[in-house]
């Protein structure tokens, strides 16, 4: 049995459940908006985890679960919590805590456990881990000193800035307009990075299987190309074997059964790793290229 946790209509969730259905694999969707109708009762006794969940009116025994795919959103942002009474909020919180704990301790394949996804909470922290895995990372400066930021820009010519955490994570070029606002960084440090130009590559690693996509764009952050009037053309791409292995090793090293690794291939043939997304919205790539990422996820969830 495979358990899929999140919002059933969300595209990555929907693609995974479609793939599971096509393959005839047993699965249940634990819809977080229906927490009130999905009781959880799990027992931890020694190293044994037993008990059951209720999903869409079905009882799922924890001991039957071989794989979990999770894309839970912050429970405080669920529509059902807006204006809800205190009892409902406490129940919602307790339900999500119990579920998150079970996901963390459940045997079998989990995409992904919180302990693995957390590296993305700090981009410079994750960059240190990425570099240890053998990837180049763009030279980075996190500072609250406008003069140092200017010197960094002068040294590298073009520099991007982005959040240090995973919150508000949009990458922008440090242009003249942004430079004029630099005195504001005195109250909260900002992350600056050498702008590495080249071809964007998104590598999805699914339990060791590598699916790569090439993105041609005229934007700094292709994910928001549409919002800023730009273009992003996605095509399937076959990475060199050594690079594919290195990506698989990086995901494994971070404890991620599913990872979205953002690379840039520069004009002189160097690969830079920008970051590793532990909860990738892979559907964006699958929808553009028809690469069978959801199918790989379904296959991987079956195996312990």
């Amino acid at each position, binding site marked *: 049995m495979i358990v899929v946790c999140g919002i059933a209509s969300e595209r990555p969730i929907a693609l995974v459940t479609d793939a599971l259905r096509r393959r005839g694999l047993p699965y249940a969707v634990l819809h977080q908006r229906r*927490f009130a109708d*999905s*009781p*959880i*009762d*799990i*027992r*931890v*006794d*020694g*190293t044994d*985890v037993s*008990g059951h969940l209720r999903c869409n009116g079905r009882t799922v025994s924890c001991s039957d679960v071989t794989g979990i795919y999770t894309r839970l959103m912050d429970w405080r942002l669920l529509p059902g919590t807006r204006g809800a009474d205190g009892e409902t909020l*406490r*129940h919602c*919180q*307790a*339900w999500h805590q*119990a*579920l998150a*704990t*079970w996901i*963390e*301790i459940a045997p079998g394949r989990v995409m992904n456990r*919180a*302990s693995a996804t*957390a*590296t*993305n*909470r*700090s*981009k*410079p*922290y994750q*960059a*240190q881990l990425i*570099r*240890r895995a*053998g990837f*180049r*990372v*763009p*030279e*980075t*400066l*996190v*500072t*609250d*000193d406008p003069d*140092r930021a200017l010197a960094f820009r002068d040294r590298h010519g073009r520099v991007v800035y982005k*959040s*240090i*955490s*995973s*919150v*508000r994570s949009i990458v922008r070029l440090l242009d003249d307009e942004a430079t004029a606002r630099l005195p504001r960084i005195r*109250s*909260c*440090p900002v992350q600056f990075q*050498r702008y590495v130009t080249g071809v964007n590559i998104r590598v999805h690693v699914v339990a060791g299987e590598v699916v790569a996509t090439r993105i041609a764009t005229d934007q700094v952050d292709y994910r928001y190309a549409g919002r800023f009037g730009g273009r992003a053309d996605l095509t399937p791409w076959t990475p060199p074997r050594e690079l594919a292995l290195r990506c698989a090793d990086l995901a494994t090293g971070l404890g991620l059964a599913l990872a979205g690794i953002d690379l840039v291939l520069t004009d002189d043939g160097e690969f830079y790793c920008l970051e590793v997304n532990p909860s990738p919205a892979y559907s964006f790539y699958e929808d553009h290229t028809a690469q069978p990422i959801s199918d790989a996820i379904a296959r991987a969830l079956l195996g312990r």
Partner: protein
Amino acid sequence: MWLVLCDAEDRAAHWAAAGLRERGLDPLEVVDAGTLTRTERSAHRIEEERGQGRDRTAPDPSSGAAVEGDRADFELTLPDGRGLASDDVHGVVNRLTFAPLHHLRFASYADTVYAMAEWDALVLSWLQCLAPVTVNRPSPLGLSGTLRSPAEWTLLAAAAGLAVSPLRLTDTPDDPPTDRPPSTRTLVVLGDEVYRVHGGDALGDLSPACIRLARSAGADLLGIHLEPDAHARHGARFAGATLLPDLRIAGAPVLDGLYAYLARLPARSR
């Protein structure tokens, strides 16, 4: 330089700092979390590739010297004018729990959440590149190591060989936690040593299991709470764990151990 990083009200950390100074760790600075987030100036750099500098976070056990390799560092000017550079730090007692932002005022709740996430992310990255010996090393799930639920601790403790009580995970809101019963004993694990409470009862031969638990939790320093139970293996049952044990309960021996632990450094990095 040695560092003790802690929350402002962490009396055990200040007690440990005084004891470590008495034992000869010099210079030793105590920096509280609020001081870190009120830096006058800060710069945190991550170089592009391996081989550009000295990796201070991954000592080579065979040579006893720091490895040439990764390079990440920081320099801070603290509010009182003190400078703090990661390259100058030999060892750290790290008891940070969060990055306080009481001194800042935000326009909205969203801005507050954003600033808290940014500062936590930055402090985590600072800690990651700090020193070859950091007790405890940071984790993205806790600045002083991975914070775990009681269920996770129970599984780890059982796997380590400690007797545990069963527990349930349900969607029913928990009752507020109650105080530990007076019979609870706390052991402090530091590396391969286990320290007991002053004059406390010996709790059977629990040391190997406690050390295994600390290792599996990735913690150099761990406080382990145990309830005496005549029916349990080794006469005690696991009752919880903390990455921030009150070191004072174990007295001078744990300070001696901590001193030795922090001073056990490759000669080149001192």
